[in-house]
């Protein structure tokens, strides 16, 4: 083997080493990107989401009767109105309960306008109402202060929130109702 062949061989091995190092570099960068992006995506994607939820009372900085989106994000219950957001950690929930109620179809200023309808027409309109679910949570803040929040959701939408939050460590004095077995 001549001197030139030796030089060529070392150049070739060096080339191989460089390609391997480059491959390893891309592998590490790719893996780290995958590793860091996966939990972030998991946190951002809410598991249960419901829009058009009314926060009746109990949103400290959010006005009573605000309408927004209720969701379970990560391990907490989150309510976001157009301007503000409140978050309650599932582990800090002392009790969570669901109930049924009904609400008038015509509310607000339109409701007052119906009172002006002659011959009791407004009263007839009051007959139109829809069923809703009421979700009540009792929780403690970081200072130990006791809070309560009442949400009104479309019918049948409160139970998934309760189920999800109880699974994450929220307490419930009334256990989740088991679905009735289907009759064949």
């Amino acid at each position, binding site marked *: 083997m001549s001197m030139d062949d030796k030089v060529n061989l070392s150049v070739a091995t060096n080339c191989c080493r460089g390609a391997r190092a480059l491959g390893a570099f891309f592998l590490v960068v790719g893996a780290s990107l995958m590793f860091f992006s996966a939990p972030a995506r998991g946190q951002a994607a809410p598991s249960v989401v419901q829009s058009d939820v009314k926060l009746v009372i109990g949103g400290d900085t959010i006005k009573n009767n605000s309408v927004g989106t209720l969701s379970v994000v990560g391990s907490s219950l989150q309510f976001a109105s157009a301007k503000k957001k409140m978050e309650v950690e599932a582990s800090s929930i002392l009790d969570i*309960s669901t109930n049924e109620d*009904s609400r008038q179809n015509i509310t607000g200023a339109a409701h007052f306008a119906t009172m002006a309808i002659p011959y009791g027409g*407004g009263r007839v309109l*009051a007959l139109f109402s829809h069923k809703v679910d*009421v979700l*009540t949570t009792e929780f403690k803040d970081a*200072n130990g202060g006791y809070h*309560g929040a009442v949400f009104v959701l479309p019918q049948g939408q409160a139970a998934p929130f309760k189920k999800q939050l109880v699974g994450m460590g929220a307490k419930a004095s009334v256990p989740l109702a088991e679905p009735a077995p289907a009759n064949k």
Partner: protein
Amino acid sequence: MRYHTRAVTVIFPLVVTCALILMVSSVWGQTSSGESKSAQKFSASSIQIEPTDAGDVPVPAEFRMAVYENLITQIEKTGKFQHVYRSGDKDAASAPDLVTLHTTAKSFTKGSQKKREVTTVSGSTSLILAVHITDHAGQTLVDRDVQGKVRFLGENLRATYDFSKKVANIVRESF
């Protein structure tokens, strides 16, 4: 014509006199009862609100929570206390002259907004709660039964707002 003028000259002053007597007596009655109510005033710089004890009365959770949250808001609005603490707040332990507000359910009737608006006379929601305010030593300062109701317009939970407004008025009278 003569009878008519006589009737006017005799009956009209009688009616006016009776009306005046009624007005004076009602005003006197109001001031005297107001004096008796506001005779004893207490002083405290902070108050802690405890959640409603439902006891044996089946009060739904949303009503208990609405009473508690409305009480905090309405008592803050009175401006009688420097601090209004929630139940369990760690900072309340260091408050020197803390008084505590307890509410215990006595009766609850859940009405229907639809019935109220259609019939006007039925479907009212009503809740009666015993209100106790105790001092640091546990001595009772205020002990009253207060009713909250919604009779004509509004959702059922509005009864809790009515109740809290009445409790806030008691606090204004007592502190």
